[in-house]
């Protein structure tokens, strides 16, 4: 039997029957699986012509079993044929012999509770020709927007459909579908006797009709034009304003602070006694809101079947909650929060971070405002090389960035520079959190101002 038909997606009933049969044959009484199936189509263009057109049909499954000693073993496979599932069962049973007896995950106590409704819109996919036409037009409009913009070397328009299930031997059965559409445009501009400059933007929506391609073109063009006239800056300590995107990048890079798994493993800046501690200035709030209506990639349950939940992590600068899996929640004596993966050692990660200003607290420097401030500051728009420039367990970072030096409200692009520091010092050196929150593709945040941050420039 082959459950791997490209048009049928996942059949949780068929998978469930197969697994019951194979687990019985293997004398496994307790098991669970997470499986996903996706279809994806994307186009890239180059100077008005189709460049690469891609499609994929993919399935995958992670199977977990508990042996007689309650040791857990897992195996992942992309072969969802009956043979593939049998092989995965054998692999998981073998792996269980090495399961950690000191810390075995269990089923989530919330794996069968009611799910919050997520209004996932499943849209009809478009033809390659339609996608190509849209992207060719976007490329042309972007290049035509300024004489110096000569190419869009990185671009793509994508439509995808995804299904995900979670089933366990105690009768939990979660199933969800979603569709998504995204566009990215990363353009390059050249002027005589100057270095090439580049800038980009991305948009994601649940369907192509509502994908805001126009604003993606406009943002890329305006950003790139603003980088045409650039200058080196001096190495110094500066007043910094992080754009919402950049601040979310920084907080995400240090999200192990809120991660119970990392805390237990000694890999976080926080420890088991940190709840209730002041970790930032008192006007900062951070929450994780996977269920936020603007989070178009939201799933209603996590890898263990726990319902996705919105959770306050930092309130008035105080660490109030952590992100949990079943195992970490059990250790901390709380309920799982819906942020788990699926494994023998279950990972934990945030869904959709939301940064806001606490209404009850005031800013250290209320005069700062992205629209009106005249004193000199550095506006950091995008951090790069985060995978190599962050030591999350030490709190330190040193990251190249794209941005501007701003004087009297006039922005001048910075040729090349690096921002460095310590995340806890940054959080305690915030002088202003603006009121207006901006929705980005990776979460929500206002502009955030931080004083006395070290910048290495090339002047």
């Amino acid at each position, binding site marked *: 039997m082959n459950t791997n038909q490209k048009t049928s997606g996942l059949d949780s009933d068929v998978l469930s029957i197969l697994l019951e049969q194979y687990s019985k044959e293997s004398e496994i009484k307790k098991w669970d699986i997470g499986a996903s199936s996706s279809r994806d189509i994307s186009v890239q263009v180059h100077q008005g012509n189709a460049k690469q057109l891609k499609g994929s049909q993919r399935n*995958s499954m992670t199977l977990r079993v508990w042996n007689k000693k309650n040791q857990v073993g897992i*195996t992942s496979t992309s072969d969802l044929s009956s043979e593939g599932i049998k092989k995965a069962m054998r692999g998981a049973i073998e*792996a269980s012999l090495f399961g950690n007896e000191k810390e075995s995950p269990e089923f989530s106590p919330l794996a069968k509770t009611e799910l919050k409704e997520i209004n996932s819109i499943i849209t009809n996919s478009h033809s390659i020709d339609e996608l190509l036409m849209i992207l060719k037009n976007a490329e042309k409009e972007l290049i035509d927007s300024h004489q110096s913009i000569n190419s869009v*070397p990185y671009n793509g328009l994508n439509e995808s459909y995804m299904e995900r299930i979670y089933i366990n031997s105690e009768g939990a059965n979660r199933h969800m579908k979603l569709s998504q559409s995204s566009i990215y445009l990363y353009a390059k501009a050249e002027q005589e006797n100057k270095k*090439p400059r580049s800038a980009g933007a991305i948009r994601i929506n649940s369907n192509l009709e509502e994908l805001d391609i126009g604003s993606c073109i406009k943002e890329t063009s305006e950003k790139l034009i603003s980088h045409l006239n650039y200058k080196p800056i001096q190495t110094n300590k500066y007043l910094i304003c992080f754009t919402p995107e950049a601040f979310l990048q920084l907080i995400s890079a240090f999200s192990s602070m809120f991660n119970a798994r990392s805390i237990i493993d000694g890999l976080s800046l926080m420890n088991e006694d940190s709840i209730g501690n002041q970790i930032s200035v008192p006007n900062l709030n951070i929450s994780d809101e996977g269920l936020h209506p603007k989070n178009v990639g939201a799933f209603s349950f996590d890898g263990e079947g726990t319902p996705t939940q919105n959770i306050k992590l930092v309130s008035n600068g105080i660490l109030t909650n952590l992100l949990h899996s079943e195992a970490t929640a059990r250790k901390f004596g709380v309920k799982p929060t819906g942020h788990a993966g699926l494994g023998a*050692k279950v990972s934990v990660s945030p869904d959709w971070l939301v940064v806001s200003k606490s209404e009850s607290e005031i800013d250290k420097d209320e005069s700062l405002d992205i629209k009106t401030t005249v004193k000199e500051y550095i506006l950091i728009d995008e951090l790069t090389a985060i995978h*190599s*420039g962050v030591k999350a367990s030490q709190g330190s970072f040193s990251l190249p960035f794209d941005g501007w030096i701003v004087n009297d409200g006039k922005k001048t692009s910075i040729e090349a520079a690096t921002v460095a520091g310590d995340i806890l010092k940054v959080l305690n050196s915030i002088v202003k959190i603006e009121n207006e929150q901006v929705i980005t593709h990776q979460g929500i945040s206002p502009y955030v101002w931080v004083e006395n941050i070290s910048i290495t420039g090339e002047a």
Partner: protein
Amino acid sequence: MTNSLLTKQNEILLLHTFDDTLKPQIEELLSLGKSAGADLVEIFLEKSDNISLLAEQEDISNVSPSFGIGAGIRVFLGKKDGFVSTNDLSNAGLLFALNQALGMLGLVTGSKNKDKFEGLSDFKDFGTKKNDWLDHSPKLDESTIKLIEATKLLADKNKNLQVRRASYSRNWQEVLVAATDGVFARDIRLHQTVGINVIAQQDKNRSTSARRYGSSGNPNDLRNWEIDKSADELNESAQKMLYAGYVEAGQMPVVLANKFGGVIFHEACGHLLETTQLERGTSPFQDSINKQIAHKAVSAVDEGLSNHAFGSLSMDDEGMEPQNTVLIENGILKKFLSDRAGYLRTGHPRTGSGRRQNFSFAAASRMRNTYIKQGNFTPEELIKSVDDGLYCKSMGGG
């Protein structure tokens, strides 16, 4: 021919060893694509068998085996290409993927085209002597014992190593490449990586240090790992970094150590010598062949031939045997790294550098083992030449 593909719904290529008995089925698919009007059709089949292990302190905390199957079908027409990947290796699944890739380029099977497919060449099996690699690789019991040995050794080095982790990953891959230009080849790859990392803590000071070692084509790699030497090196680094202060920001001369010092070259220069970058117009070296692009002391080579080096391979992911490619000689740019699409779009000849992360990616030109050749000065002379600067011993994250 077409009928047999459309009727054998349940015959799954997965059940086969990748060998020349698949030739009729693959030729049939390729022929369909060619007759639809494609300039070239390529099929990449992959099976994988991977293990990932983690030891933390005195325990094995994660054992994650994974198996994979998949196919990538790529169709070229002029300078355009359509690529479709699928986990469905049934005839129906592959036919669906082929039709989708053809459809992306406006081609339809069944249409008549005068260019006929001449058939696949003789089967080149680079995997013949590698069939036992998977069986000869360490099993779970042996691997887990080795990792625990590593974390225990680290504990013996210093009590302040409060977090001690050792990881091992074994990636085994069997691939088959077939294309309408006659390429028909199979290979087996084995990559193994061991990593150790620690967090040292003393009072309020904290330092993290990590090392990673990798190899290809050597089932005994984990068995031969000199754990004590690695643990000594890591502990020394962690202790030195524990009380290290922040360096003052600014510009200064830097002496890069060998080995991981090459990360800078790899990231900042090597990627810009790949035709994938030329295709996008994002390399500053676009028109620099035979021009001086570096100090005359710099000669750089990229090759896939060194025994057991991580980037070595018997054939690339487009079925071409690797070469020793001189990129920069005495500061002069000599060659770019090129794959099939790179040759088609930029004219730079293929160098056996077509690589893909797995079946779900089309091949792209990528570095294999990149070396900077020896220069005229010793490390001591380089360091002595700097009044006030940095010595960069190790880099990560590239």
